[in-house]
C-alpha cells in the first residue's frame, strides 16, 4: 500500500507545473467557499445572538398559550416548585423573571405604542448586563421606581433623562394600567426594532402597574448557547408539572429560522456550481496525465503490471492532489476567516439600514466553526473519488501494444 502511495507521489511531481496549477485551483476554490460559508454562518450567529440571545434568551417559559395570543390573561407565579422542575436538566444557570406587555407611552404630547418589560434590576445587571447598555443617565438604583427607555423611543418622543414618561394600557384581567415615571436612563439595543419600542421598569413596579401582584408572564432561562437552548427547551417542554410552555429560540423566532434556512440553501447552490467547475478542472488534469503516459502504461502492462493496480495508482494520484489542495485551502482559509472575526466588515449605509430593520448588528462577521471546513474537505474528497473511477474504466480494457503505439 505504502508502495503505491510512494509511486503516486513521485508520479505527481514528475510534472510539477501541472500539479501546482491543479493544487492552486482547488486551494482557491476551498478558500472562497469556506470564506463564503463562514461569512454566512457568522451572519446567522450574529442574527441569532442579536434577536434571541442577548436579551430575550435562548429559552423562555410562559403559561401555556401565551406566545400564541400574547394577551394579559397568561400570568403565573414563579414558585419554588417550578424553579426546581426547571433546574432538573442541570443546564440552566439562571432564571430571569419578567413581565412583558404593551402599553401606550406618552411624553411631551407624543404618543407611541411600546413594549414594557418589568425586570429584576439586580439579576439583569449580573446576567443580561442591562446596566451596560445604559449610555445616558444611569441604571436603576436599589428600590427605586423609574424607567429606562430605548434610544430609538427616546429619540422619537424627544425624551431626555429626567423627563416624565406616562404609560397607559391594560393590565391583568382588564384592569387599567396607568403610571407616571421619571426617566432614569436611556438604553442602547443592537436591535433597532427593540430600541424603538422598549421601556424597562423594575419588576415590582410592573406588577403594580399591570395589577399582577406576585406574578410574571415570562421566565427567561439563561443557558450557554443557542444549541444548548434548543436542547433544554425540547427536554422541558410538556415535561414540567403544570400548564406551561417551554420555548427555544427556534420556536420563538420561526421567521429567523426560515430566513437562515433559505439563505443557507442559496449558499449551497453557489458552492455546488463552484465545485462543479473545480471537478471538471481535476478531471481535465487527470485526462492529460493519462494521455501523456499512455506509452508508459503500455510498457508497464507489457512487463506484467496488473491493470487494476495501475488504475489504483492513478486513483491515488487524483485523490492525493485533491485532498492536499483541500487541506492547503483550509489552512489558508482559517486565518482569513479568523481575521474577519477580529475585524468584522461593516456594511455600507443602505445595507446597514436593512440589517437594522431585521434587528441585527450591521456587521459581517465570520465564524471558524470546524463543520464548515470539514464540509469543504468532504466535498473535494467525494469529487476525487468519483473522478478516480475513470482510470479503472479506461485502463480495464487497455492493450499493451495499442498503448505503446499511440
Amino acid at each position, binding site marked *: 500500500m505504502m508502495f503505491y502511495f510512494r509511486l503516486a507521489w513521485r508520479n505527481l511531481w514528475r510534472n510539477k507545473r501541472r500539479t501546482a496549477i491543479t493544487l492552486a485551483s482547488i486551494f482557491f476554490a476551498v478558500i472562497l467557499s469556506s470564506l463564503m460559508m463562514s461569512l454566512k454562518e457568522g451572519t446567522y450567529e450574529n442574527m441569532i445572538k442579536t434577536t434571541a440571545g442577548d436579551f430575550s434568551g435562548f429559552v423562555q417559559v410562559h403559561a401555556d398559550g401565551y406566545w400564541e395570543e400574547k394577551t394579559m*390573561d397568561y400570568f403565573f407565579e414563579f414558585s419554588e416548585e417550578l424553579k426546581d422542575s426547571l433546574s432538573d436538566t442541570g443546564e440552566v444557570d439562571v432564571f430571569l423573571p419578567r413581565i412583558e406587555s404593551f402599553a401606550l407611552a406618552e411624553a411631551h404630547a407624543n404618543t407611541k*405604542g411600546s413594549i414594557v418589560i418589568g425586570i429584576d434590576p439586580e439579576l439583569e445587571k449580573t446576567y443580561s448586563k442591562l446596566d451596560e447598555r445604559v449610555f445616558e443617565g444611569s441604571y436603576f438604583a436599589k428600590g427605586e421606581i423609574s424607567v429606562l427607555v430605548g434610544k430609538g423611543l427616546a429619540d422619537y418622543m424627544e425624551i431626555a433623562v429626567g423627563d416624565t414618561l*406616562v404609560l397607559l394600557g391594560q393590565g391583568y*384581567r*382588564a384592569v*387599567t394600567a*396607568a403610571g407616571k415615571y421619571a426617566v432614569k436612563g436611556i438604553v442602547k439595543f443592537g436591535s433597532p426594532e427593540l430600541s424603538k419600542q422598549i421601556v424597562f421598569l423594575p419588576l415590582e413596579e410592573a406588577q403594580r402597574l399591570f395589577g399582577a401582584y406576585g406574578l410574571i408572564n415570562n421566565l427567561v432561562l439563561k443557558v450557554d448557547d443557542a444549541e444548548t437552548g434548543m436542547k433544554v427547551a425540547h427536554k422541558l417542554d410538556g415535561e414540567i408539572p403544570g400548564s406551561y410552555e417551554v420555548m427555544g429560540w427556534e420556536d420563538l423566532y420561526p421567521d429567523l429560522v426560515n430566513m437562515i434556512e433559505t439563505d443557507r440553501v442559496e449558499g449551497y447552490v453557489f458552492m455546488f456550481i463552484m465545485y462543479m467547475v473545480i471537478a471538471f478542472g481535476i478531471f481535465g488534469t487527470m485526462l492529460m496525465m493519462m494521455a501523456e503516459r499512455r506509452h508508459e502504461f503500455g510498457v508497464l502492462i507489457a512487463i506484467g503490471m496488473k491493470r487494476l493496480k495501475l488504475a489504483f495508482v492513478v486513483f491515488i494520484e487524483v485523490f492525493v492532489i485533491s485532498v492536499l489542495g483541500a487541506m492547503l485551502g483550509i489552512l489558508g482559509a482559517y486565518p482569513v476567516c479568523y481575521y474577519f472575526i477580529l475585524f468584522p466588515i461593516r456594511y455600507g449605509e443602505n445595507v446597514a439600514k436593512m440589517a437594522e430593520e431585521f434587528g441585527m448588528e450591521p456587521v459581517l462577521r465570520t465564524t471558524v466553526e470546524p463543520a464548515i471546513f470539514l464540509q469543504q474537505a468532504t466535498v473535494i474528497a467525494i469529487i476525487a473519488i468519483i473522478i478516480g473511477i475513470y482510470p479503472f474504466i479506461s485502463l480495464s480494457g487497455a492493450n499493451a501494444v495499442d498503448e505503446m503505439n499511440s
Partner: protein
Amino acid sequence: MKTASIFISALFIVVSLPAFGQNALEIVKKADEKMKGNSSRAEMTIEIVRPKWTREMSMTSWAKGDDYSIILIQSPARDKGTVFLKRDKEIWNWVPSIERNIKLPPSMMMQSWMGTDFTNDDLVKQSSIVTDYEHKYLKDSTVAGFPCYVIELIPKADAAVVWGKIKLWIDKEEYMQLRTEFYDEDGFLINIMTGDEVKTFDGKKLPSRMEMIPVEKPGQKTVIIYNDMEFEIDIADNFFTTQNMKRLK
C-alpha cells in the same frame, strides 16, 4: 269562493313584498333614532366575562348627537374617575391617578376598550346603519317573544365599513334592536349582539341588557346593563371638552 280567497291572499303577498322592500330602510331608520335620541344620559354596568374570570365596572355616560359623548368610570376603585371623551373621531382619555389627559393614537383604535369585547374604534365609529348600508327585508321572526323584522344590511361600495354583512332583528312594535349579527367579508359570523330585559326608560321602551358575544372565542362575552337612562336632556356642547373631563364626578 275558496279559489277566490287563495287568489286574493296570493295577490296580497305579491303586492306586499315590494312594500316591505321599501320599508326596510324606514324600519332601520326608526330603530336608529330610537337608540340615539338627541341627547342622553345613562347609568350602566359593564361585565366582562372570560373563561377564567369576570370583571364588573360601573359608569355614567352622556351623549349628544353623533359626535359627542363622555364616559365616566365610577367603579372599581382603581379606575374611578377615569373619563373617555369622544369628539368627532377623536378619543381622549383622562386618567386621574396620573393626572394625564391622553389622546388615543390611531394605532390604539383596534385595541380593546377597557378590556371589553369592544374596540376603541367601536366607540368612535362613524358608520351609520342608515346611510352606509343597502337594506333588504329578509323575513319575520320572533326574539324572546317579540315579533321582529329581520333585515339584512350590505355595506355600500364606498362606505368605510369593516363588516361584510349585518343582520338586524328589529321588533315590530317598538323598533328595538333585539339581535344583531355581524359577518365578515367572507360571510363568517364574527359577533352577535343581543338585547333583552326590556324596560321603560324615560318613556322609551328599550332592552336594558345587551350582550356582545364574539363567536370564535368560547366562554367570552361583554354584558352591558342599563340601570337608568334619560333622554332629551339639556346639555351644552362645552360639556364635551377636555377641560370638563377633569371636573366630572
